[in-house]
């Protein structure tokens, strides 16, 4: 007689092994390691703290000629703001008359000539272009043409058709808008016909090479345009600047004002009396502009520019504090995040916990995915917290100390804060993938730092030549820094070096995210493959 004992069965009901349980397990592992939680707090503090150091530690002093030395807020520039709230330059010579209601203006530009500062000017030496030793020549963005403007105040709304010396016919409006028309330079053999028509708030620009065949260049809406607007001919030529490229960074050096003279004829559509005046007296060099009218021919001479002032532009904007300065700690925060994210898996290998993990959930790819989800969410929160702290506190400190922050919209700030979170999340997933591939903490951290933090460092510290810096932020995982892009590049404004050093990243935010996410995705897929192939 044998006693049959039934095989042992646990009385506990079988546990579920869904992805939710896996997430819960990984989250428990993460939050119960004190060092990792501290690491995440350190990441927030580094992201926010370094920027506050720069906001709080800045010191500006200035002295006007013959005046007392001043410091702090007294030196801060006051920008003219455009209709969109962006800082703008608005100074030019305007031959104008009022236009009531709908109407149009047509003119033919037959020649553009100009003056540049002396060719042998030393860098940094500034002399007015009206002195005798100037040389003839046109600045590539010298402009003459026709314009419809809300009123004669600086910063008011406008739309204009113009010929730009080195950039063909352009339609520009409200400072930031720019559309190309007919290419090629203006001359007696190749005159350009320009036309603007107003219908309510809508202004349409046309150009033509012969005055019979017209092409529409663009249609823009200027909301709230009053019934009476100013319409006329204008001339503007921006400050001559020279780019000096030093190895440790690049700097623009202003070399003085330039001047343009445009000759118009066949002006039609308006029949009143013309008045000529300098709008926004060109800084330091008054009385450049003039116009002369004889036998249907108008000769208009002017200096200045109608354009946005990009962040980092020479002059007043240089001393403005940028929100990129608040966010400089991001790269240090990413190092801390990278360490924790890499150790999140390498520590399991070191302690052999990985065997328990894989025994509990044999589907290794899902374990990796759960880990990635946990570090991504935590890092997103860390990035958003660090970015928000940096921008809000940095702005508050700047304001409290009376300094000027280069203005950005609230939407842009929000975009940058969320972008910092996404940047951190993708970086953490990348670090986790590298950790899973190399399985050693030190090697993983070193690779993460080389892949993400060092490129940022090289690009924004000015250690690389300009082109190299741009390429580094295009192809490495550090391309994700484009998510922190706060300022807009204006190709129609030269004299600014659009470099990572001054907060201009070479890719659009989505392209930067794409490059970085591609790196993270490929590495994560590689890690999943290796996890399945290798013994634990």
């Amino acid at each position: 007689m044998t006693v049959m004992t039934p095989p042992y069965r646990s009385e506990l009901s079988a546990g579920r092994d869904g992805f939710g349980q896996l997430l819960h397990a990984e989250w428990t592992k993460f939050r119960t390691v004190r060092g990792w939680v501290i690491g995440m707090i350190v990441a927030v503090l580094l992201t926010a703290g370094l920027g506050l150091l720069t906001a709080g530690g800045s010191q500006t002093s200035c002295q006007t000629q013959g005046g007392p030395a001043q410091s702090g807020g007294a030196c801060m520039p006051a920008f003219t703001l455009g209709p969109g709230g962006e800082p703008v330059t608005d100074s030019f010579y305007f031959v104008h008359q009022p236009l009531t209601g709908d109407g149009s203006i047509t003119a033919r530009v037959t020649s553009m000539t100009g003056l540049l500062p002396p060719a042998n000017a030393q860098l940094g030496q500034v002399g007015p272009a009206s002195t005798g030793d100037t040389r003839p020549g046109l600045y590539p963005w010298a402009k003459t043409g026709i314009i419809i403007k809300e009123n004669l105040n600086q910063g008011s709304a406008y739309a204009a058709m113009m010929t730009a010396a080195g950039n063909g016919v352009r339609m520009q409006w409200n400072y930031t808008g720019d559309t190309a028309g007919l290419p090629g330079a203006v001359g007696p053999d190749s005159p350009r016909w320009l036309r603007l028509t107003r219908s309510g708030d809508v202004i349409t620009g046309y150009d033509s090479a012969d005055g019979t065949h017209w092409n529409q260049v663009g249609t823009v809406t200027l909301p709230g345009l009053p019934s009476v607007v100013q319409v006329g001919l204008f001339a503007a030529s921006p400050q001559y600047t020279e780019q000096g490229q030093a190895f440790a960074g690049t700097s623009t050096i202003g070399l003085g004002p330039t001047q343009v003279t445009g000759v118009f004829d066949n002006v039609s559509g308006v029949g009143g009396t013309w008045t000529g005046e300098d709008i926004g007296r060109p800084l330091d060099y008054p009385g450049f502009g003039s116009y002369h009218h004889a036998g249907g021919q108008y000769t208009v001479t002017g200096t200045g520019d109608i354009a946005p002032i990009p962040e980092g532009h020479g002059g007043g904007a240089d001393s403005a504090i940028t929100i990129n300065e608040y966010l400089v700690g991001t790269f240090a925060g990413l190092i801390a995040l990278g360490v924790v994210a890499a150790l999140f898996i390498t520590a399991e290998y070191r302690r052999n916990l990985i065997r328990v993990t894989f025994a509990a959930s044999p589907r290794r790819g899902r374990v990796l995915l759960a880990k990635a989800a946990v570090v991504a969410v935590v890092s997103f929160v860390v990035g958003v917290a660090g970015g928000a702290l940096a921008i809000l506190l940095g702005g508050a400190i700047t304001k409290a100390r009376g300094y000027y922050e280069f203005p950005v919209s609230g939407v842009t700030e929000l975009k940058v804060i969320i972008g910092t979170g996404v940047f951190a999340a993708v970086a953490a997933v990348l670090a986790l993938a590298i950790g899973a591939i190399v399985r050693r903490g030190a090697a993983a951290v070193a690779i993460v730092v080389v892949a993400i933090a060092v490129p940022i460092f090289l690009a924004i510290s000015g250690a690389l030549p300009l082109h190299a810096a741009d390429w580094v932020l295009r192809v490495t995982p550090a391309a994700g820094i484009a998510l922190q892009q706060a300022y807009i590049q204006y190709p129609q404004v030269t004299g600014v070096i659009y470099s990572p050093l001054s907060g201009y990243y070479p890719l659009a935010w989505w392209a930067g995210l794409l490059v970085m996410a591609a790196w993270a995705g490929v590495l994560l897929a590689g890690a999943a493959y290796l996890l399945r192939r290798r013994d634990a």
Partner: protein
Amino acid sequence: MTEAVVSAGRPGRPARDAWGTWGVWAGLPDALHAEWTKLRTLASTWWLLLGTAALTVGVSSAVAAAYHCSGGPGGVAGCSPAATLADPAKISLTGVELGQVIVALLAVLAVGGEYGSGMIRVTLAATPRRLTMLTAKTLVVTGWALVAGLVGVAGSLLIGRLMLPGRGLTAANGYVVPSLANGADLRAFGGSVLYLVLIAWLALGVATAVRDSGVAIGLVLGVLFLFTIVAAVVPDQHLARHLQQIAPMTSGLFIQDTVNLRVLPLTPWQGLGVLALWAAGALLLGATILRLRDA
């Protein structure tokens, strides 16, 4: 019947014979031999050596290839040294900024790897005098860093000589083509090798103090790059200058400058001295903690 022979000495030579009176340094040659064997027999050591040289030379050549001196729109600035402020020696040595990461990694692994695997207990059982062990490790890592640095820097020198003249930095334009016959260049290239050795010491000290390789390498690289980047963006020039003076990486790399030395916050050798202070401080911290703590 087992006879346990515990001897750290090499066969055929009694341990602590001639060195007995040296106190703490007794057994250093044996410890040195042990550390060298450990380092030599790890495959990663040789991969990292190759990696240091390849990364240094690779980055240097990429930067040299990307360099071009751009004049202004009126051709005013041109390609003269006064306009570009270019430093051929420093450009060809850019790779050191990445090569140092691998040097630091090796130094961190030399200590942290033993803590990771538990090997450190065996090491300390064999070499109970902890400072002797640390000294031996430091010497072995120094030798490795010297070799890695020499190879990488020699490659960078070659890059500078071969590529930069093609990028407009020619003797005809008024630049000095990098050459060891030139005193400033000798200082820049030789000093870069010393720089890498000091980075290895810094990393070794930090790793001995924190014992975890991952955290140690994160700390070392964080400290190296942190100061530099903050100094680069701080709007206040005075603060930036002070930061550059105390930053281990920025000041250490002053050794690579050969032009416009007057604008540097420190002389090149003073700068390397700042890094040396950091390295010595880290080693001292590591040694103190190693003495006081259980393994």
